[in-house]
């Protein structure tokens, strides 16, 4: 660790991993409810479990992003963090807000929770991914602003590297687009239209900047390739991301009451969205092949390469699969969407957060890299989780194709529920792949506790 204050990243990373485990446990509950419909009913209805699953995902990724920023921004800026104390306070505030919100979902009736937390003053709840009570949403904004203040001041005090600038644009964008979560017009079409300004402009917009910056940082560190080269790549990648991704939002404006012309704009621009993801893969492999040193942290290199490949598969390939309007007409809101959502979130954002954790955590714990034994286990966890997620995706894709065939294409369409019964076999296989994923996650957590001879820092 070059700067003492980078240490504040550690609790963020630990919280991220813990909440990740919670997310996956609720994923297993959901997967089981798909095949045993009354599982845990009425204690935990599906909609509650789903909210916990997706909100934990978002919260732990945000913990990961913040931890990454606290680690990376001082190192890039070559100065101590503006206020480590503020970072610690925000950690506890964010953790408390997150945990209380989840407990609220689980133990308070959702309608009661809404009334208790001011939803009648400003109704923002009950929309997918944005289910948080108003108080939580305000809390998120406050934490985000204080966090941005802290890291922006840090950067302004020091070196303004391209990585820092891109990361900060991404994080500011994240906070700014979240503000649309407060806009919930009664007009359903407008509600949906601006809802995507949070959801799409996050994952296919500003988050890509965050992802590319984190990847670039880790690649510089583990390959020793010239910064100039990496920074040029970085600009090219994020240009491609925003040029395609902003208007690419139109791929959500096909069937929600918006004008027909979005079928053209949305299809064409979003069809180009895989390009930046492809560029990231090429970039990662290129840099690793041109490496000027053998970094002792092999696991971090594996996660970095894995991020490139899996993000391209999940976002690029599985995204392209259903993004053209004539295809999306049939796939819209089916298991195909769920398949893509899983592989894209995993490949891009789960993996990039684990990449930075994998690189930074050993250093935060006072060594250049973990012991070879610990790294082997960590690499096993990469393969188990990644292969399991690929199988989850394949099973959901199979279920989705059958669902579309039986319910939407057929001359004598089946009802939704009858169709679901027909494809139950694939849902069962998804549950088992989910169990394997959980085993991979357990392996990952275990790798932190494996002892052994490790490379000292400053080798």
């Amino acid at each position, binding site marked *: 660790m070059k700067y003492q204050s980078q240490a504040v990243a550690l609790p963020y990373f630990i919280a991220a991993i813990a909440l990740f485990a919670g997310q996956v446990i609720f994923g297993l509950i959901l997967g089981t409810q*798909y095949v045993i*419909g*009354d599982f845990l*009913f*009425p204690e935990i*209805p*599906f*909609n*509650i479990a*789903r*909210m916990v699953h997706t909100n934990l995902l978002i919260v732990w990724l945000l913990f990961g992003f913040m931890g990454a920023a606290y680690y990376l921004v001082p190192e890039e800026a070559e100065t101590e963090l503006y206020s480590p104390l503020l970072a610690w306070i925000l950690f506890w505030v964010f953790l408390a807000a997150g945990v209380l919100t989840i407990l609220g979902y689980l133990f308070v009736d*959702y*309608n009661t929770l*809404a*009334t208790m937390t001011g939803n009648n003053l400003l*109704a923002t709840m*009950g*929309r*997918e991914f944005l*289910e948080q009570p108003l108080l939580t949403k305000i809390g998120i904004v406050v934490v985000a602003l204080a966090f941005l203040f802290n890291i922006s001041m840090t950067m302004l005090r020091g070196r303004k590297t*391209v990585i820092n600038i891109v990361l900060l644009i991404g994080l500011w964008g994240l906070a700014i687009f979240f503000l649309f979560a407060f806009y*919930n017009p*009664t*007009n*359903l*079409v*407008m509600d*949906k239209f601006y809802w995507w300004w949070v959801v799409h402009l996050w994952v296919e917009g500003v988050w890509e900047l965050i992802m590319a910056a984190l990847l670039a940082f880790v690649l510089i560190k583990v390959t020793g390739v010239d910064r*100039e*080269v990496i920074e*040029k*790549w970085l*600009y*090219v990648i*994020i*240009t491609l991301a*925003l040029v395609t991704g*902003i*208007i690419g939002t139109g791929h*959500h404006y*096909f*069937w*929600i*009451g*918006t*004008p*027909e012309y*979005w079928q053209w*704009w949305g299809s064409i621009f979003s069809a180009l969205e895989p390009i930046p993801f492809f560029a990231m893969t090429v970039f990662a492999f290129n840099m690793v092949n041109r490496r000027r040193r053998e970094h002792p942290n092999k696991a971090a290199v594996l996660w970095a390469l894995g991020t490139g490949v899996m993000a391209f598969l999940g976002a690029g390939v599985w995204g392209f699969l259903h993004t053209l309007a004539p295809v999306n*007409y*049939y796939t*819209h*809101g089916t*298991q195909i969407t769920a398949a893509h959502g899983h592989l894209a979130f995993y490949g891009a954002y789960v993996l990039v957060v684990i990449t930075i954790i994998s690189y930074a955590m050993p250093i935060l714990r006072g060594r250049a890299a973990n012991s070879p034994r610990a790294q082997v286990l960590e690499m096993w966890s990469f393969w188990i989780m990644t292969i399991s997620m690929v199988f989850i995706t394949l099973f959901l894709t199979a279920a989705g194709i059958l669902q579309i065939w039986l*319910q*939407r294409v057929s001359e004598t*369409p089946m009802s*939704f*529920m009858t169709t*679901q019964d027909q494809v139950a076999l694939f849902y069962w296989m998804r549950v088992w792949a989910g169990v394997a994923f959980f085993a991979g996650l357990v392996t990952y957590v275990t790798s932190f506790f494996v002892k052994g001879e490790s490379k000292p820092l400053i080798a």
Partner: protein
Amino acid sequence: MSGTFTKAMARNVFYGGSVFFFLLFLALTFDTMKALPKTDNRHNLTPSAAAGKHIWETRNCIGCHTLLGEGAYYAPELGNVYTRRGPDFIKAWIQAMPTNAPGRRQMPQFHLTDQELDDLVEFFRYTAGINTQKWPPNIEG
């Protein structure tokens, strides 16, 4: 990438390109907002339908169902449920929950009043009238 394409050029393309396409997106948004009254069925957005939307949200129906294809994929599409089932069926259905049929997916009992049920139905009547460019492909959603 050759030496003629410098980092400064890459940076300028990034800022220029992003700003340009964001402005284009804003222009399209502006045009959409002007065009919406023709497709978004706002004249059926009665106070009762608005109240229905509030009930839809505060019971987190989107956590199981899709609405115009967005939401969860655990339970049927409801954007067109008014057309598929009609008002009486919808109300009776909600009141009869949960079915408690063993192994079957369960929907909670929300204890809605008659007024609230009417509002929800009115909301579904409104959503069913939105011009969705002929989506879904058939009545099953």
